[in-house]
C-alpha cells in the first residue's frame, strides 16, 4: 500500500494479543527505526489471521512469507535478517507436521489450502483502525453502487438471488427477511446487527469485528437503504473490549468521511449507527430478548409471532442479522448474486466460518464453502487430533446443537444436513473431542450452561432443565439408575415441546444426541458405575502403581471383592472391571502405591 517496499502485517487480534503480539509490534517498530528502514517498511497491525494456534503471526508482503509463533526476540531477528539482508528466517516458518517441511507461503499450508474467504476476506490483510485501508480494498464501493445504481428493491432482489442465509444459527434467507421488513407498514424501521456471539467456543463474529469492522458498517447501511431504515444498532457483548474499541473507531471514521450520518455520499439517504452493549446474558442473543435488552429492560424473549420484521425495536419493523451475515453482503453486491450462488450446496450458498476448538491440532477460524465435509475440516485444515489421540465426536451448534461421530464425518455439511443428523449449524462453533472426554460430563456441562443462562420466564425451561442437570449430576456421581436414563429422555422431549424460546427448545439437544450416539457410555455410568473416559471423579477405579508396590499383600486382605491378585514381594494388580471403588485398599497401603484413575 503506497510507496513502501514491504508491508509487514502483524496480527493484533485478541488471540495473538494474548500471545504477546503487542510487544512483537513494538520491538519491530523499534528495530525498523534502528535499521533506518522506516520509510521503506510499512508496519501494519491487522485483525485475526485465523490461525490462532500458531500466533503471534507476522506476514511479509510482497515476499509472501508467513512467520508463526513470533516472539519479541525473534521479531528483532526478522528485521535484521529478512528486512535488512533479504534472507527468510527459516526457523520461524510453519512446519507441516506430517512432512516436517518448512512452508513459506500461506497458501501452501493445509490450514489455508481449502479455505475460501468471503466473510473473512480482509481479516489479517488490512489495518482495521484505518478506513483508508478498507477503502483501498474496494471498501464502501458496494454502498456507493447500491445508492447510485440500484433501487432498494434491486438490492433486495440481488441478496435474495444470492441464496444468502442467516449465519446466526437459524439459516433464514436474508433477502426474504429484508423484503418482509420492508413490506411492513410503519413510520420508522430499524436495522440491528447481532454481535452477541453467545455460543461459548465460537469467535468468528469477534474476529470480523476486530479485523474488518467497516465491512459490517457498510452492509448495515446497505440493509438500511434496502428496507428503508434510518438507523441501526450493533448489540455487542461486553466480553469483547477490543472489538468494541475497533468498532467505535470505525464508526467515527465513517462519520468523518460522510459514509454514515446525513446524506451519505451526497444522496438523500441518511443512516446512523449506535453501539449497545450486552451485559452477560446468553439469551440476549435471541432476537426478541435482544430487542428488550436494547430498550433497557431485562433481556427476556417474547412470543413470536409477531416477528421483529413486523413488530421490533420500539415496536417498529426491525431487521436483525448476524455479524457474519452482514460481512457477506458487500461482496454479493460487488461480484453479483450468481457468483455467490455458484459456491456451496443446493440449498446453502456461499461459505461458512467455523471456529475450530478443543482437541484439534490447528485451533482457529476457517472459512470453507458450504458442503465441505467435517472430515476435511477436522483432519485436513485442522490437522487432526492433538497428541495423536483418537477422535471421538465433534459438537456443532453450541449448547443448542449436538455431537457428531465418526460415522457422519463424510457428510457434506450445510444447514439441512446437520439438522438431519441431529445437530445444527448454529453459529459455527466446532468443539472437537477425543477419547479422554466423557460424553455424559459434556452433556452435563451444556446443561449447566443453559440452567445458568435461562431467563426464568417459562417453567419448562427453568425447572425442566434444572431437573435434567440434576439427573446428569447424579449419573456422573455414580448414583444413577436405568430409570434415570428413561426420565432424561422423557423430560427432554417435554422441554423441547413446551419451552417459550429457542433457548429452552434446544437445551436438551446435547443430552439427546449424546444419548443417541453414546448410549453405552451412559449405561456404563449407571450399571457398572464406571466412566470409560476416566473423567467422572466419583467413578474412578483403583489402580496399583507397579513401581511403588512392594508386594506386602495387605490390600488383598481388605478388598471386599477379593479382586486384587499378586504374589508376595511382587507387584499386585486390581481387576479394574470389578473394582467398586470403595477405597479400602488405598487406605491400608503403606507405600502410596494405590491411586485412582
Amino acid at each position, binding site marked *: 500500500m503506497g510507496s513502501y517496499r514491504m508491508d509487514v502485517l502483524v496480527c493484533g487480534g*485478541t*488471540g495473538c*494479543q*494474548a*500471545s504477546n503480539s503487542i510487544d512483537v509490534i513494538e520491538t519491530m517498530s523499534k528495530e525498523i527505526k534502528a535499521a533506518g528502514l522506516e520509510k521503506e517498511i510499512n508496519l501494519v497491525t491487522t485483525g485475526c489471521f485465523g490461525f*490462532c*494456534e500458531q*500466533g503471534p503471526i507476522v506476514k511479509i508482503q510482497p515476499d509472501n512469507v508467513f512467520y508463526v509463533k513470533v516472539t519479541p526476540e525473534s521479531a528483532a531477528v526478522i528485521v535484521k535478517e529478512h528486512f535488512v539482508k533479504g534472507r527468510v528466517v527459516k526457523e520461524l516458518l510453519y512446519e507441516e507436521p506430517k512432512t516436517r517441511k518448512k512452508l513459506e507461503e500461506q497458501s501452501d499450508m493445509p490450514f489455508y489450502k481449502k479455505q475460501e474467504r468471503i466473510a473473512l476476506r480482509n481479516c489479517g490483510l488490512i489495518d482495521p483502525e484505518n478506513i483508508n485501508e478498507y477503502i483501498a480494498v474496494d471498501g464502501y464501493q458496494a454502498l456507493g453502487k447500491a445508492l447510485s445504481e440500484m433501487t432498494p428493491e434491486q438490492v433486495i432482489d440481488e441478496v435474495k438471488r444470492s441464496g444468502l442465509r442467516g449465519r446466526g444459527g437459524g439459516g433464514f434467507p436474508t433477502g426474504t427477511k429484508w423484503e418482509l421488513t420492508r413490506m411492513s407498514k410503519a413510520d420508522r424501521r430499524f436495522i440491528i446487527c447481532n454481535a452477541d*456471539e*453467545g*455460543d*461459548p*467456543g*465460537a*469467535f468468528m463474529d*469477534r*474476529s470480523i469485528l476486530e479485523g474488518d469492522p467497516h465491512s459490517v458498517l457498510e452492509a448495515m447501511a446497505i440493509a438500511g437503504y434496502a428496507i428503508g431504515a434510518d438507523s441501526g444498532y450493533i448489540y455487542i457483548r*461486553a*466480553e*469483547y*473490549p477490543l*472489538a468494541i474499541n475497533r468498532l467505535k473507531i470505525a464508526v467515527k471514521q465513517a462519520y468523518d468521511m460522510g459514509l454514515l450520518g446525513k446524506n451519505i455520499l451526497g444522496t438523500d439517504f441518511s443512516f446512523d449507527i449506535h453501539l*449497545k*452493549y*450486552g*451485559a*452477560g*446474558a*446468553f439469551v440476549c442473543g435471541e432476537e426478541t430478548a435482544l430487542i428488550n*435488552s*436494547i*430498550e*433497557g*429492560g*431485562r*433481556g*427476556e424473549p417474547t412470543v413470536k409471532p409477531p416477528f421483529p420484521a413486523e413488530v421490533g425495536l420500539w415496536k417498529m419493523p426491525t431487521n436483525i442479522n448476524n455479524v457474519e451475515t452482514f460481512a457477506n453482503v458487500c461482496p454479493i453486491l460487488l461480484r453479483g448474486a450468481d457468483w455467490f450462488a455458484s459456491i456451496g450446496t443446493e440449498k446453502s450458498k456461499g461459505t461458512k466460518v467455523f*471456529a475450530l*476448538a*478443543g*482437541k484439534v491440532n490447528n*485451533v*482457529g477460524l476457517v472459512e470453507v464453502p458450504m458442503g465441505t465435509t467435517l472430515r476435511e475440516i477436522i483432519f485436513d485444515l485442522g490437522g487432526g487430533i492433538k497428541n495423536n489421540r483418537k477422535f471421538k465426536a465433534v*459438537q456443532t451448534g*453450541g*449448547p443448542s446443537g449436538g455431537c457428531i461421530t465418526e460415522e457422519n464425518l463424510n457428510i457434506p455439511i450445510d444447514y439441512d444436513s446437520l439438522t438431519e443428523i441431529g445437530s445444527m449449524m448454529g453459529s459455527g*462453533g466446532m*468443539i472437537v*473431542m477425543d477419547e479422554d*472426554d466423557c460424553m455424559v460430563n*459434556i452433556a452435563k*456441562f*451444556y446443561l449447566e*450452561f443453559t440452567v445458568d443462562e435461562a*431467563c426464568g420466564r417459562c417453567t419448562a425451561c427453568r425447572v425442566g432443565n434444572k431437573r435434567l442437570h440434576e439427573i446428569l449430576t447424579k449419573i456422573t456421581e455414580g448414583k444413577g439408575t436405568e430409570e434415570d436414563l428413561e426420565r432424561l429422555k422423557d423430560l427432554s422431549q417435554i422441554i423441547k415441546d413446551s419451552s417459550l424460546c429457542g433457548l429452552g427448545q434446544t437445551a436438551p439437544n446435547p443430552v439427546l444426541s449424546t444419548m443417541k450416539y453414546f448410549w453405552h457410555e451412559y449405561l456404563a455410568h449407571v450399571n457398572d458405575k464406571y466412566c470409560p473416559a476416566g473423567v467422572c471423579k466419583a467413578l474412578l477405579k483403583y489402580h496399583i502403581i507397579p513401581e511403588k508396590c512392594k508386594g506386602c499383600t495387605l490390600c488383598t486382605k481388605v478388598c471386599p471383592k477379593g479382586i486384587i491378585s499378586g504374589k508376595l514381594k511382587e507387584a499386585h494388580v486390581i481387576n479394574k472391571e470389578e473394582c467398586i471403588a470403595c477405597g479400602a485398599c488405598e487406605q491400608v497401603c503403606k507405600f502410596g502405591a494405590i491411586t485412582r484413575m
Partner: protein
Amino acid sequence: MGEYKVDAEKLKKLGDFIEGLEYAEGELINILREAQEMFGYLPMDVQLFIARKLGIPAAKVYGVATFYSYFTMTPRGKHVISVCLGTACFVKGADRIVEEFRKQLNIKEGTISEDGMYTLDSIRCVGACGLAPVVIVDGKVHGRVKPEDVAAIIRGINEDESGEQMLVKQNVQ
C-alpha cells in the same frame, strides 16, 4: 446497611452522566455499567438513586441489575481473576484451573478471598478459544494456562501490587 457509604462525589458524577443522556430510560443498562465502573459494584443506594433519577420503580432497576451476570451487588476484590468456562476452555481442563486458584487463594465459598484482595469468577468465552484454557487477570488475557502456572500468575499480580506501592511511595516523596 451503614457499613458502606456511597461516595457523594461519584454519585454526582453519575447524576451528570444520566442527565447528559438523550433517552435516559432506554439507557438503563448503560447507566448501570457506568455506575458499576465508578463504584466497583452496584450498592443498593446507587440503584435507588438511579431509579429516582429516572423516575422508574426501584424494582425495575433491581430486576435489570440481577438479570445480567455482568452486574454484581457485592463488592469485588481489588484484583479480578476470571477463568473462562466456555466450551473450548472446558474441554481443555478449565475446571482444574478454577480448583487450583481456589486452593491457592484460599477461597472456599463465594468468589472473594477473605482479605478482599481477589475476586475469582468465571466467564463464558472471551473469543480467545484458540488459546484455551484462558484466564483473564485484571483485563489481561493469559492463554494455555496449566494448573502449574497458577502460582506464577498470582505472584505476577502481587509483584505488580508491590510495584504500584513503590510508585505511590515515590510520588509521596
